[in-house]
């Protein structure tokens, strides 16, 4: 490639990524809009949260003070404006700032998702490759059965079984929480805590804290990780089966390339392209799974917190958190596009 062509290729990539970024705006806007109006179908946040407990006149006074008697469009645009300024509101249940909730509890979810992805990659990719390699033979059958069972088992049931076995019966691992009370207390006293406990624990320099945090992470990580691993296995298996039949794989074989290299350098790399794309969608699934895992293990992540606010009908908090989640998903799907461009040169140029 001449330098000029190289530059134009880069600018094509930038243009592509810029376009993907621009396309995120309507996505987020639609979600925020859908959630806002869904929530308001039931009524304004004050009526929803305080409905039975206040007299009609008191309710009215509060509504007026909060501005909920204005036309819904005015409220909608005011809400959009607030979001743009980074103001997600204050929860009426516990008067926490939503931004703060998203940052601290979000960190907990991030930690959980990180551990779970570790499990999912470690289990999913080798098993997926193995299943494809022994297509329709015993390893494939057992791995597929395994994948079906873990897909079929709800995360909270897997969590329950793990708790029963490793916590209640064997007593090896803690049943819930992210760390023991004193660890949290100590780590909470740190300056600028990241709220990602493993980082804070490492920073504290105490080996006991690190072990404590890790012990608490094992069961939730396996629970959420296996759910995701099931998806990975299926995806990698089916895509590998497809790419090992591709002409370029036969052509590589005909050139005398060793079988191991044919699979890993040609088939697997190409099989990853659709896997990366689907992973973008898996983020949503993982967040759904995170809500359930967090509830099962009382892991105070964003999903757990959200379901608490939902049960309390605190719609200001719900709206704020949901908007934040939509933003995170949009950003994550953008990251997936970037990865995709790195894996697939046809996107890059």
């Amino acid at each position, binding site marked *: *490639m*001449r330098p000029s062509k190289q530059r134009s290729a880069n600018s*094509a990539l930038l*243009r*592509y990524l810029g*376009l993907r970024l621009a396309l995120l705006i309507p996505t987020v806007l639609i979600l925020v809009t859908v959630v806002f109006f869904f929530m308001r179908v039931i009524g304004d946040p004050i009526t929803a949260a305080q409905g039975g407990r206040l007299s009609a006149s008191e309710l009215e006074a509060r509504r007026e003070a909060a501005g909920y008697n204005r036309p819904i469009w005015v409220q909608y645009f005011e809400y959009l404006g607030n979001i743009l300024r980074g103001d997600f509101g204050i929860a009426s249940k516990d008067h926490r700032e939503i931004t703060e909730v998203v940052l601290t509890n979000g960190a907990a979810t991030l930690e959980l998702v990180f551990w779970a992805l570790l499990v999912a990659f470690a289990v999913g990719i080798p098993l997926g490759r193995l299943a494809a390699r022994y297509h329709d033979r015993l390893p494939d059958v057992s791995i597929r059965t395994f994948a079906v069972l873990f897909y079929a088992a709800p995360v909270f049931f897997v969590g329950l079984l793990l708790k029963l076995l490793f916590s209640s019966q064997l007593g090896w691992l803690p049943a819930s929480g992210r760390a023991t009370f004193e660890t949290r207390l100590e780590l909470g006293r740190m300056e600028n805590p990241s709220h990602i406990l493993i980082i804070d624990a490492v920073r504290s320099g105490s080996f006991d804290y690190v072990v404590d945090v890790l012990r608490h992470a094992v069961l939730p990580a396996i629970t959420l990780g296996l759910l995701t691993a099931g998806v990975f296995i299926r995806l990698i298996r089916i895509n590998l089966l497809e790419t090992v039949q*591709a*002409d*370029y794989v*036969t*052509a*590589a*074989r*005909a*050139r*005398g*390339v*060793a*079988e191991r*290299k044919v699979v890993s*350098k*040609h088939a697997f*790399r*190409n099989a990853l*392209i659709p896997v990366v794309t689907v992973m973008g969608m898996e983020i949503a699934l993982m967040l759904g799974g995170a809500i359930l895992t967090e509830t099962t293990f009382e892991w105070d992540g964003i999903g757990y917190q959200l379901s608490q606010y939902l049960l309390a009908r605190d719609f200001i908090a719900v709206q704020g958190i949901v908007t934040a989640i939509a933003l995170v998903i949009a950003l994550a799907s953008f990251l997936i596009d970037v990865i995709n461009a790195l*894996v*697939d*040169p*046809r996107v890059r*140029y």
Partner: protein
Amino acid sequence: MTRPLLRARDLTVSFQTDGAPVRAVKRVSFEVAKGEVLAIVGESGSGKTVSSRAMIGLLPRTARIEGSAQIDETELIGLRGEAMRAVRGDRIAMVFQEPSTALDPVRTVGWQIREALQAHRRMTRRQAMARAIELLELVGIPEPAQRIRSYPHQMSGGQKQRVMIAMAIACDPEVIIADEPTTALDVTVQAQILDLLHDLRERLGTAIILITHNMGIVADLADRVAVMFRGELVEQGKAEDVFERPSHPYTQHLLSSVPYLGRERPAAMNTAAPKVENEVVLAVKDLKVYFPGRIGSPAVQAIDGVSLELRRHEILALVGESGSGKTTLGRCAVGLLPPSSGQLTVLGQSLDRIKPDVLRALRKRLGFVFQDPAASLNPRMAVGACIAEPMTVHGEGTSQSRRERVRELLEAVELPAEFASRYPHELSGGQRQRVSLARSLAMGPELLVADEPTSALDVSVQAKVLEVFVRLQHQMGFACLFITHDLAVVDLLADRIAVMKSGQLVELGTRQEVLRHPKEQYTRDLIAAVPLPDPAAQRLRQRQRRGAGLEVATS
């Protein structure tokens, strides 16, 4: 020739299926000597690819291979693992039909050539890269040092096939198996690739097994010919002998079916044609069609200002290579695509902002035959329903009269009446295309657009379809826009010819003018690139072409 280099003896391949095993190749024997080109000729499914792949173990696990294939003293059948790997690419290399799928899309071509080299040679990365550049230069890729960093999708089809050939010769193999190496390419590019193969044989002395269905290519390149039919090798001999005196009925049939550019039309095609009248049925004036590019990239100009007229009873052939805009023009003519600008008048009716119901009424008088007969018939509908579809949607006749008409149409395309109740996938390609023709003729159209109607078919089947087509045109007298890339087919049936290139009209004239006395250089190149199914004549053309300059080989 000298001692055979590669020898197959009684090669038999059968495939394990759910039912009984299926024998794909039956006791096939052939051999090829150093520097020799052996063409294995046959139609799809004749077993020519299976037998060649069997030799280097590229068949699926369900294949059972018997017999013997030896390169020098090494027995190939039964060779496994490392031993087989050492043969592939190093002693026997392969060139595939579809260069765009045979190259890994996520690796640069340099990476792939390097991989081919390092599979057999101890080389550093730097040495391999230097050799890769040499190889690209050898196969005529300009600026090889830069192109080595390109990904396959950044290259043209011809360039990709050159890269495939570069990989095949990377380790100086003794034999190259070229499996339909030019089928996916345009005819001018095909000529270049054939020249390249010819050149490699001369320079490197590589033996080539050329698998093809195209008798023109055989005539161009082959020293000897082996003809396969239904998994058997029915005839084998020197190229001149096979062309001159084919002994097996299948070979005779095949050779008689191949259309020959520049020869007299066969009797079956030369019946009394209806007189072309002056009335214009299709008028195209300064037609332009753009396709919007992907967001951020410019629009693609498919047709760039084309004007032409088609008269009643006339067959106008629209000729061009891929990307010339010929298919786009055909689709515009029946209102499947809206023109971006210019005028399009069909049977006196302008298609500009035409109302849907007016267009529907107009379509009663139009017909269209598609390229791929398998895809153009709804797989969920019986043949009878497919043929009756135009009558059904226009509410023509009763179901009784429609059935009657379907029977007539089937008869007209020489198919038995009971085919009406069959499903498309139960028919052969040629039969399906005749069904497609019957459907397009159901309403007795005045204008028929045929888009590459025979290019998905084998030659011997193509001949039958063309014969039926010409007879019906003579009987029914519809005007026809016949879109094709095959000049030999054009010579069989066209009254006038329009040559297109990159969305523009290059030349327009009668068949005699365009094919015998072309005015434009492009038309001349196109005609010169068509390989003639006659070794002596083709040798002559070859010499002229190669004498004409090396710019063909490097462009």
